[in-house]
């Protein structure tokens, strides 16, 4: 639970102070210490954290997050167990849940918004729910003060991008590369292109996600964007047993890299 911390307000404020934003992603329910990992990445300097509720059919995810999702599901993770876990502790940064729409749809949009609220989650990312299909969810979320982060892709045309940027809440999630989540050897040129496109359209924080794998890449990406989302590179370390300490070290290194800009 992170009462009172709005994703949008928190990130906008940090941006205003010239700070580059860092939002790590972790898979909820991955390992028994996943809540400790969450605390560790906040301690390492995360401005907010994306918590995945695993889904059986994660079509936006590459092998690393697929495996993390499967492990979490196999060990019994459910939306209730993950949100219940979040509700039990207090966190020093706002939380956003990332999941696929069927989890929301199956619970019922109103009920799911209530669950997030109760758990102290302030934002949500639903990568397979395009803005066209989002009406019902958005009104339920708004009633609970849940911010819905929208993604913008390199293939999104300008007029549509403007609309997404305008409607996005919390921050704008810029898809850095055409592809699913996963590590990449180098930053895609598309990451810097989209950053420039989107920062010119809005004052909202624009974070680059998908494929940010190393401190160097995070730094490079942050040149044009307001910050980065780091997922697979962190989750791989967790799958390899890195635990809270490993997560802390890795996120700290990214923090240092983006701060050095």
């Amino acid at each position, binding site marked *: 639970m992170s009462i009172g911390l709005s994703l949008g307000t928190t990130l906008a404020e940090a941006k205003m102070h010239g700070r580059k934003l860092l939002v790590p992603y972790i898979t909820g329910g991955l390992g028994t210490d996943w809540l400790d990992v969450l605390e560790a990445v906040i301690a390492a300097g995360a401005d907010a954290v994306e918590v995945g509720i695993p889904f059986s059919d*994660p079509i*936006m995810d590459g092998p690393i997050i697929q495996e993390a999702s*499967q492990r979490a599901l196999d060990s019994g993770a459910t939306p209730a167990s993950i949100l219940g876990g979040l509700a039990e502790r207090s966190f020093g940064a706002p939380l956003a849940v990332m999941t696929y729409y069927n989890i929301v749809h*199956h619970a019922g949009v109103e009920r799911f918004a209530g669950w997030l609220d109760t758990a102290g989650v302030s934002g949500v990312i639903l990568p*397979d729910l*395009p803005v*066209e*299909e989002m009406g019902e969810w958005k009104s339920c979320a708004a009633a609970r003060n849940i911010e819905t982060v929208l993604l913008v892709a390199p293939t999104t045309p300008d007029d549509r991008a403007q609309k997404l940027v305008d409607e996005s809440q919390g921050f704008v999630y810029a898809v850095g590369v055409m592809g699913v989540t996963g590590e990449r050897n180098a930053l895609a040129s598309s990451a810097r292109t989209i950053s420039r496109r989107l920062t010119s359209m809005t004052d909202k924080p624009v974070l680059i996600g998908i494929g940010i794998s190393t401190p160097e890449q995070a730094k490079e990406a942050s040149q044009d964007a307001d910050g980065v989302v780091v997922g697979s590179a962190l989750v791989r370390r967790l799958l390899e047993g890195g635990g809270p300490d490993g997560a802390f070290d890795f996120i700290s290194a990214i923090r240092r890299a983006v701060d050095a800009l």
Partner: protein
Amino acid sequence: MSFMGPPSEAGRFGDFGGVYVPESLFAACSELEAGFSDAWADASFRSTYYQILSNYAGRPTPLTYAGRLSEKLGVELYLKREDLTHTGSHKINNVVGQALLAKRMGKGRIIAETGAGQHGVATATAAAVFGLDATIYMGEVDIQRQELNVFRMRLLGAKVVAVSSGSKTLKDAINEAMREWVASVETTHYCIGSVMGPHPYPYMVREFQRIIGEEAYSQSLDQLGGAPDFVVACVGGGSNAAGTFAGFADTCAAVLVGVEPAGGAAVGRGSPGVVHGMRSMLLQDEFGQVEEAHSVSAGLDYPGVGPEHSYLNSTGRAEYYSVDDDAVLDAVMLLSQTEGIIPALEPAHAVAWVASEAGKRIPLGSKVVLTMSGRGDKDASVAAELLVGRLR
């Protein structure tokens, strides 16, 4: 009132359908919708499509009166012979349409998922004909049980990628194909194999398959002297059923029946859900995790169903029933030995339902049109194992 018109502008059939895709794919779906609308309204596109189906793929397919089986069951049974098309199933109809469209839209590469392998073979075939590069995603379980088709795809020049996540069957092959599509959407057309996925696929694939129903309807008028009483087809994603129903839903009062596998009865046992880009009936657990289907037939081994079937079920215009694996194997033997037609395991579901319901839900003397969606060669190794001891 029209039962099978086009979907709404948002791509919905009633409450079902839609475009639930990552933003990275949204533009591609819009572009595809525009491309399809444009092409489908273009007489020269249609005429090329029909010409290929006729000169290359063997259309029209016959409507065969199954005399010995009819006598045995007490109904008049007619088989729409999609098993006689090139590559051996109705899947070719759809693929010819999509490959032509991909070419028209300037895509040089085509990817597809496949369960039974028939859609993969059809896609690899069209890729060879049109000189496109093809990659096919197929679950490891299906690769094992449909080995003939794996070889055919490779021989046709396609790359076959084994998918080892989740249930290792059709559902996961779709996931993997979608992931690949996200990465390559600008150069690549994703050739979905059934009336599923995000709009415009359910509509487009149904339109490319409606030739089955249109032929069968007009053959019925000729050969049966009128519309049939029942029209029966198996339902995996639902493309052969949708294509068949499209010829009858708005032209006559025939009872339309979709037959699902007992272990994958999305309409029969599922609830509304959102997966693979669409809102439709879905087998899922209490938390919204998608359940694995379990069917002897790789092509029906899928926990979802095309959205239009969910809609047709909700309106009552079509009815959906299911049969189990044992009944399906019996039906394979029954049709083989009475009519000399070895069905694929998928349409054997439809045969099994007719065999069990003749004289019950199907009154004696009824005229029944059944879509024989594909031939059984691909299932030889599975069927041989399961039928061992029952053959001479």
